[in-house]
C-alpha cells in the first residue's frame, strides 16, 4: 500500500507545487504591471500632464487628464497614483517577508494590501463612471491588477504554506 501511495503522493505534491509556482508567477506579474502603471501615473502627476499618453477624449482633451485633475486624484493632497505605487511596493515587501521571515504573516500582509488596493480602486472607478464621467485607462489598468491580486493573494493565503515533500 505504502509502496503504491508514495509515488502518487509525490506526484500530487509536485502538481500542487507547480500550481503554487504558477500562482506566485501570476501574482508577481500583476504586481509588476501594476507597479509600472502606478509609477508612470506618479511620474506624470509631478512631471505634468503633457507626458500623459491617453487613448480617450473628454471635452476635447484627454479623459486621463480630466480624471487626473479631478478632486478624487488626491487624498489630503497626496496623489492616489503615489498611494498606489506605495501599495505595490508594500506588496513586494510582503513577498520578501513571506520568503525570508514569516510565511503566514507575509501572505496575510499581501492579501490585506491587495484588498485595500482593490476596494479603493473600485471606489475610484465608480467615481470615474458616475462623478467625473471620464475614464482613465491607466487607472482602470491598475484597478484590474489590484482586483486580480486581491483574488490571487486571497487564494494563496487560504491555501497556506506549501507542504514539505
Amino acid at each position: 500500500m505504502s509502496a503504491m501511495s508514495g509515488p502518487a503522493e509525490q506526484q500530487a505534491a509536485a502538481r500542487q507545487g507547480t500550481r503554487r509556482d504558477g500562482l506566485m508567477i501570476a501574482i508577481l506579474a500583476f504586481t509588476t504591471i501594476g507597479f509600472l502603471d502606478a509609477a508612470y501615473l506618479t511620474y506624470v502627476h509631478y512631471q505634468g500632464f503633457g507626458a500623459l499618453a491617453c487613448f480617450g477624449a473628454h471635452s476635447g482633451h484627454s479623459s486621463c487628464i480630466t480624471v487626473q485633475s479631478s478632486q478624487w486624484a488626491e487624498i489630503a493632497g497626496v496623489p492616489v497614483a503615489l498611494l498606489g505605487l506605495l501599495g505595490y511596493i508594500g506588496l513586494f515587501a510582503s513577498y520578501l517577508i513571506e520568503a525570508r521571515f514569516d510565511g503566514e504573516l507575509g501572505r496575510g500582509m499581501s492579501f490585506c494590501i491587495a484588498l485595500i488596493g482593490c476596494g479603493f480602486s473600485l471606489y475610484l472607478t465608480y467615481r470615474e463612471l458616475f462623478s467625473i464621467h471620464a475614464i482613465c485607462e491607466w487607472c482602470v489598468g491598475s484597478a484590474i491588477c489590484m482586483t486580480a491580486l486581491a483574488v490571487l493573494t486571497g487564494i494563496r493565503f487560504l491555501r497556506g504554506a506549501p507542504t514539505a515533500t
Partner: protein
Amino acid sequence: MASRKEQKEQARAARIAQEQASAESAQRRRRLQILGGAVVVAVIVIVAAIVISSGGGNKPTGSSLTTGSQATAAQSAVNAELANIPQSGTTLGNPNAKVTLTYFGDLQCPICADFTLGKGGGGWPEFVAKQVKPGNVKVTYRSFCTASCNNTSVSNPQALFNTQQEAAYAAGKQSKFWDYAELFYHLQGTEGTPYVNESFLTGLAHLTNGLNVPNWRVARHNPVYAAQVTADNGLATKYGVNATPSFVIKGPKGIQSVGSGVLTYSQLESAVNAVS
C-alpha cells in the same frame, strides 16, 4: 498480541499524530486570526480613504454646490436678469445690434464675478438692463485664463480651466451659456481652492433654467468647444488682453479697448457711445 516494541511504536506514532494535529490546529487558528485582522484593517483603511477622498476629511471650499437658499437666490437673480434676452452660443442680446462688446472672462476669476454681479460698482447688471435688453448692444463672451491658471490647488489648472469653460460653452449650444456662466459667478468658491469639479459643474447645469442636462453632457464631448477656448486665447493675444474681465467694443465708428477690471456702467456707456 502486539509486542512491547510494537506498542511503543504505536504510542509514538499516536503522539506524533496528536502533535501534528495540534500544530495544524494552531496554524489554522493563526491563519484565521491573520485573515480576520487583514479584513478588518482593509475595511478600516478603505472606509477612511473614501471618507477623506469624498471630502469628509479635507473638504475643499465650495466643493459641493449650495442647494439651499444661496442657489435659489442665484437662480432667481439670473432668471430675472436674462429673461427675454436672446442668446446664441456665447452671445447675449440682439444678434443684429450694431455694437458688440467682447467680454474676456475666466469663470474662476473673482473680479469677473464682482463685475458681473454688480459688486464694487460693477456695471454689468445695469448695462444688461439698459443696453443689451433694449437691443442696442450684444455681448460675446471669450475665455482667457487668469485666476484658474493661478490656482495651484489643482493638479492641472489649464486643463481644469478648459473643462469649466467648455462646460459653459456646451450650455451655449442650448442658448444657456449666460445662465450657466452667471450662475457660476454667483456660486463661485474661494479663489485658489479646488472647488471646481464635476459635481460643481453638473450641479450648475441642474440649476440652469431650462437646460437639458443629458444633452449638455453629450455636448461637452464636442471638440469644437476646446477649439473655441483655444481660439479665444488667440483673440485675447491679438487684442493684448492680459487680465480678466477685459473688454473690447466694436461699432459703426470702429473698435477700441474698454479696459479691464470692475468697470462701472458709465464707463461702459461711454464706450458704447464712442463707437456708435
